């Protein structure tokens, strides 16, 4: 039995330390940090790199949505960097973690940066002047950067650093830095911090392709890695997204992708599958073709592992509509053609025949490995790794490392993609918080503000304008003094001033003083982008007692001086226009209130399977009451049909233990035989009616969050004589027979398993994800009972991703036969006299084969439980196949678009137990961001309705992407400010203009436009 419970601090009398150390600031580390900080814990986020963002910051697009990676990630970057309860420590490593869970002392070594973070404004003058250039690792060495640098333009923290190894010490950067941020005397320093738990999220590094010399990486210039290709495709890449090959800068027409480089490879010790390469190669092929239509991509693969949600549809589309060619094969080597720089790829095709083909560019789909630095850190921290260098975890407790109080998530646990990393990161946050729940709120701080000065809308605006030189970034192009003088002439401006750096700490003090001295009630800063700096200035004026919405910004750097460098007079004129626009808008800015709404600090969980029960226990462990609603009389869900994991863990013992603990937990109210019949309210305050059989007693539950964990089940297959012949069964039925006793199973002489029954077809295009693993598990179990049994697995692709791959290898070693079939020619099960026959096409022999097995096992699809009605009640969307649809496929894998409702387990998509457990923890972390707060602040930028003018035409109801507006009993549209996200679509569309969006009111936008033109 796994120690699922090691996150609970045992016997600790003293309160645990309410802080968490997160190691690694990639997408996983950021998610874990944000979840923890939002639920009352203080976070130290330590990253080895000079900036957070990890590998995701290098990606161009993400599958299967083709979202721009940087676009979807940058809000998380900014959120992490500016959160008051997250301290980001970059360019640093964890030396030691001493002590016990709940009371660790971590030693952090901060490496010298030579640029003072408190002074650096990120203007980049230093890098522009630095005489040194070296290969830029952000672009995988395909471009060059200075010795003083910022890893990438959107980096957080936006603080440069000096690469000491490259720097020759000439001193020019110090000379040109007007902020005085360069400090050559900087030294590495150690710091000790107290934390209650630790999360390891150090990510991966890509496999060193030079370790497969037969592919010529590092020898032939036109053989590159997939990460290099990713950078080539990127708009911030070496050629600004133009696809050019390295040898001669021409556009390659024929591009080969070679899969499994450094994965599924015994020779280099990486027996595992890297899980993501199939999909990223399809994505890169599709995107390359989008860039240049004449590109002809070919993907050389062994098994196409498109096992995630929506992946198969993406793969099929690439194959059918987007002209990506897929060749099932084994590539043996790559040679360079004389003179052309082209490459000859030699491979064995599906039928075992050798073939050769010429390509202009070869992309090696490199796998994921753990870097030496991370292995060293793990060793220092006393965390055990598995044979392949990934963190050792138990399948039933995937977030716990071998050391109590230290948790893990992301690719360091096992290779995985972004959504699974994000889900696991939230999960690790919940696990880390679970052990130190008593310390919640002890270290995280809430800021105290002075009371707000009332600014009535009738009150005459008194505007202060601060124009920024930004060193020379603005000042060298825009005539700042003249902009300042101009600003002073504008209506209601009582003060205009200029600063070298308006964002510096002393200027903040200056602004605060000016607010007091001049009685300012509006503040305008003309400098850089509000996207990065508005939060800080808002904070400043709030400190001085002004409502934060009375602040306004004019972007005269990013959208003026930087882009009109060679048109100085025009740039100055434009800067004046922009300031005039800001003034026109500021005059109309109003204080906007945010109201506190109390939170019902209880959770409702729908579904009592492994995900639901795990979530219930974890929430209860953090001190919250939970209502666990289960339709059936018994808890357990699909887990009741599973006996062992592929790793050999006893699932039934695990289930019994779970049920016992759920039943014994006083904070969990189990409602079996119950269903949700009514649902209403918003995040923080839901009301749900639950009806319980047999008496159909009804009760209403008030709760702050809702977790949907209704699960999935094995489909009753159609055809293949299932239900007609007792010798045809499903995998779950077979597993039951294997578990029931050896005798019957041991007597089996010959078994045929048929994969993808009911999956990956027209009716259900998705892969059911778990059936390959189940088939391997059951085949191995039968081999243990009867090594002589002949087992044939008829498959389309064996999708034993991640750490499942070694079991596939084991099955082949033990003599299990794997025979591929095409969907056009599926196996046929028939009866011939008393015998059962299975006939199928034998691809190697290229003939039809017929066998007479004792048993045919169908790997039937996983389908969601009946959930249509529930989806309607909760107003949450489902996929075409009936699984629940998350808010964002990549970065919000357990959230619904409606706040406060989460999804966990197989209700989201088919999952292994270990994945359901991770996701259940994730839902808990997300839920705690609401439950841990006594009040939620609502209001600000939201739409408001003028009831008088509303004609109840329902336009707003129709256009709102979040279904917020409703027409109330008075016949007027009503918009709940708790739910409104502030996009303003309703305001733009309302025929009577009865709706307005606060802070972006029609009057304001019109005033801005007017101000841009006049004069």
């Amino acid at each position: 039995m796994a120690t699922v419970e090691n996150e609970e601090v045992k016997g600790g009398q003293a309160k645990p330390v309410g802080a968490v150390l997160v190691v690694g600031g990639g997408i996983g580390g950021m998610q874990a940090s944000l979840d923890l900080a939002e639920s009352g814990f203080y976070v130290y986020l330590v990253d080895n790199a000079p900036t957070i963002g990890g590998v995701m910051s290098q990606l161009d697009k993400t599958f299967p949505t083709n979202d721009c990676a940087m676009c979807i990630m940058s809000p998380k970057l900014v959120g992490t960097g500016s959160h008051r309860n997250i301290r980001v420590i970059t360019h640093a490593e964890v030396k030691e973690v001493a002590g016990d869970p709940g009371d660790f002392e971590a030693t952090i070594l901060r490496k010298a940066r030579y640029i003072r973070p408190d002074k650096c404004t990120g203007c980049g003058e230093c890098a522009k002047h630095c005489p040194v250039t070296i290969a830029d690792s952000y672009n995988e060495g395909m471009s060059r950067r200075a010795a003083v640098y910022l890893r990438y333009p959107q980096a957080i923290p936006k603080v440069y650093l000096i690469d000491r190894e490259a720097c020759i010490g000439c001193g020019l950067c110090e000379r040109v830095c007007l902020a005085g941020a360069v400090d050559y005397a900087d030294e590495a320093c150690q710091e000790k911090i107290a934390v209650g738990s630790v999360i390891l999220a150090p990510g991966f590094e890509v496999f060193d392709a030079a370790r497969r010399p037969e592919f010529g990486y590092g020898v032939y210039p036109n053989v590159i890695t997939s990460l290099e290709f990713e950078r080539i495709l990127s708009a911030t890449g070496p050629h600004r997204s133009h696809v050019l090959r390295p040898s001669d800068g021409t556009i390659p027409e024929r591009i080969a992708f070679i899969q499994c480089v450094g994965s599924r490879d015994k020779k280099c010790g990486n027996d595992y599958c890297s899980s993501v390469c199939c999909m990223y190669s399809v994505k890169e092929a599709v995107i390359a073709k989008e860039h240049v239509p004449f590109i002809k991509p070919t993907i050389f693969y062994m098994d196409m592992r498109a096992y995630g949600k929506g992946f198969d549809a993406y793969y099929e589309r690439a194959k059918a509509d987007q002209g990506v060619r897929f060749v099932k094969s084994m590539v043996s080597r790559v040679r360079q053609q004389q003179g052309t720089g082209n490459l000859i790829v030699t491979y064995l095709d599906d039928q075992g025949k050798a073939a050769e083909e010429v390509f202009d560019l070869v992309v090696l789909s490199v796998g994921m490995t753990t870097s030496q630095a991370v292995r060293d850190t793990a060793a220092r921290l006393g965390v055990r790794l598995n044979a392949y260098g990934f963190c050792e975890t138990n399948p039933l407790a995937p977030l716990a490392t071998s050391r109590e109080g230290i948790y893990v998530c992301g690719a360091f646990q096992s290779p995985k993609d972004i959504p699974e990393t994000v889900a696991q990161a939230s999960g690790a946050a919940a696990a880390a918080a679970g052990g130190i729940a008593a310390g919640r709120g002890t270290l995280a701080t809430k800021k105290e503000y002075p009371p707000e000065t009332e600014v009535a809308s009738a009150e005459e605006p008194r505007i202060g304008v601060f124009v920024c030189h930004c060193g020379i970034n603005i000042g060298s192009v825009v005539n700042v003094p003249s902009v300042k003088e101009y600003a002073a002439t504008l209506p209601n401006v009582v003060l205009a001033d200029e600063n070298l750096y308006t964002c510096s700490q002393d200027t903040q003090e200056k602004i605060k003083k000016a607010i007091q001295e001049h009685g300012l009630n509006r503040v305008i800063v003309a400098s850089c982008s509000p996207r990065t700096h508005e939060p800080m200035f808002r904070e400043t004026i709030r400190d001085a007692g002004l409502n934060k919405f009375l602040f306004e910004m004019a972007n005269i750097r990013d959208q003026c001086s930087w882009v009109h460098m060679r048109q100085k007079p025009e740039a100055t004129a434009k800067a004046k226009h922009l300031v005039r626009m800001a003034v026109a808008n500021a005059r109309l800015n109003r204080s906007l209130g945010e109201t506190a709404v109390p939170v019902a600090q209880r959770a409702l969980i729908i579904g009592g399977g492994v995900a639901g029960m795990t979530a219930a226990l974890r929430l209860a462990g953090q001190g919250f009451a939970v209502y666990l609603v289960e339709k059936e009389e018994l808890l357990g869900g699909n887990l009741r049909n599973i006996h062992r994991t592929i790793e050999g863990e006893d699932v039934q013992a695990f289930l019994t233990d779970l049920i016992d603990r759920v039943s014994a937990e006083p904070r969990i109210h189990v409602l079996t035989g119950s269903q949700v019949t009514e649902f209403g309210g918003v995040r923080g305050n839901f009301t749900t009616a639950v009806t319980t059989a047999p008496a159909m007693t009804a009760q209403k539950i008030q709760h702050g969050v809702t977790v949907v964990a209704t699960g999935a089940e094995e489909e009753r297959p159609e055809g293949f004589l299932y239900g007609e012949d007792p010798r045809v069964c499903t995998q779950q039925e077979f597993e039951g027979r294997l578990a029931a006793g050896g005798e019957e199973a041991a007597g089996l002489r010959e078994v045929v398993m048929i994969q993808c029954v009911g999956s990956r077809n027209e009716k259900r295009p998705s892969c059911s994800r778990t059936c390959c693993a189940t088939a391997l598990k059951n085949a191995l179990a039968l081999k243990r009972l009867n090594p002589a049994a002949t087992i044939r697995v008829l498959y389309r692709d064996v999708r034993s991703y991640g750490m499942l791959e070694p079991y596939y290898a084991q099955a082949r070693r033990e003599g299990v036969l794997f025979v591929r079939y095409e969907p056009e020619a599926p196996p046929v099960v028939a009866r011939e006299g008393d015998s059962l026959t299975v006939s199928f096409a034998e691809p190697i022999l290229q003939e039809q084969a017929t066998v007479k097995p004792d048993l045919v096992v169908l790997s039937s699809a996983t389908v969601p439980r009946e959930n249509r009605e529930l989806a309607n009640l909760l107003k949450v969307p489902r996929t075409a196949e009936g699984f629940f649809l998350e808010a964002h496929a990549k970065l919000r894998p357990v959230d619904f678009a409606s706040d406060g409702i989460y999804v966990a387990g197989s209700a989201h998509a088919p999952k292994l137990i270990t994945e359901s457990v991770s996701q259940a923890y994730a839902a808990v972390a997300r839920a705690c961001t609401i439950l841990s707060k006594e009040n939620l602040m609502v209001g600000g930028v939201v739409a408001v309705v003028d009831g008088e003018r509303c004609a109840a035409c329902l336009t707003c109801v129709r256009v709102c992407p979040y279904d917020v507006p409703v027409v109330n009993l008075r016949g007027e549209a009503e918009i709940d400010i708790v739910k409104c996200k502030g996009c303003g679509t309703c305001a733009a569309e309302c025929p009577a203009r009865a709706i307005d969006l606060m802070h972006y009111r029609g009057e304001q936008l019109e005033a801005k436009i007017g101000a841009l033109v006049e004069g």
Partner: protein
Amino acid sequence: MIDGQGAAQTGAVQADAKLHQAEGQAGFEPRILSFLCNWCAYAGADLAGISRFQYPPNTRVIRVMCSGRIDPAFVPRALLAGFDGVMILGCHPGDCHYLSGNIQAERKMTFLKKLLAGEGIGAGRLILDWVSAGEGQRFAELVRDFTGQIRSLGPFRVTPEAEGTLRAIQTALEGERIRWMTGKAGELLEKDNVYGERSDPDRVREVLEATVRDELRKNRILRFLETGPLTAAEISGKLAVPLKETLPQLVALVGEGRIGFEPAEESHQPRYVKSG
């Protein structure tokens, strides 16, 4: 930037030099610009006069206080103006009136010679040497020898290519980054750097050379693109630099937003254009 006075002086002798260019090859009379330091070389030249030592009339002299004053950017400027050679004469090592101005000059000119050689202009049109106040004879000999040397090299023709290269060199040498480096390199070779450590001299030289070379090549590429879009291969041909070394410059220029790609891209060979 070249300072006003220096520019005016170079300009004044420039008209003279232009005239000569029209004369053509027949009866080629080299035009040589000499920079003489006030304390040694200029005095040496005067002594040659006092002593009536004869030397060819091909050189025009600009007096500077110290050979250390010679901005490397003056040299391409002189060649562009129509001179066939540039001569810089200072005090002997150890005799400099300003302690080390001549040594600084030597460092700068050695570097510049390497650059001129590398970019196809040739190092033979520039000479740096020492003449003391008492060496009138030596001054006359040096002028004679250098005039002979230039005579054998022939007139310096400001072809469009040469003009492009020289302008690129001049722009590069006038940029702050390179001026800092050329000035700083000597100090870095002799003293501790900002970290209180001694920099690796090879690395310093390598950075200096690479900085100037890259700047120069980038400037030349920008000039090529003024006349219209070009492929990487064409640019490499014009630069007379292998494609392998040309591509990184193109990547850098694209990264700085100074060049881009021609929008139409049916061809396999994308063409670069100057950014608007």
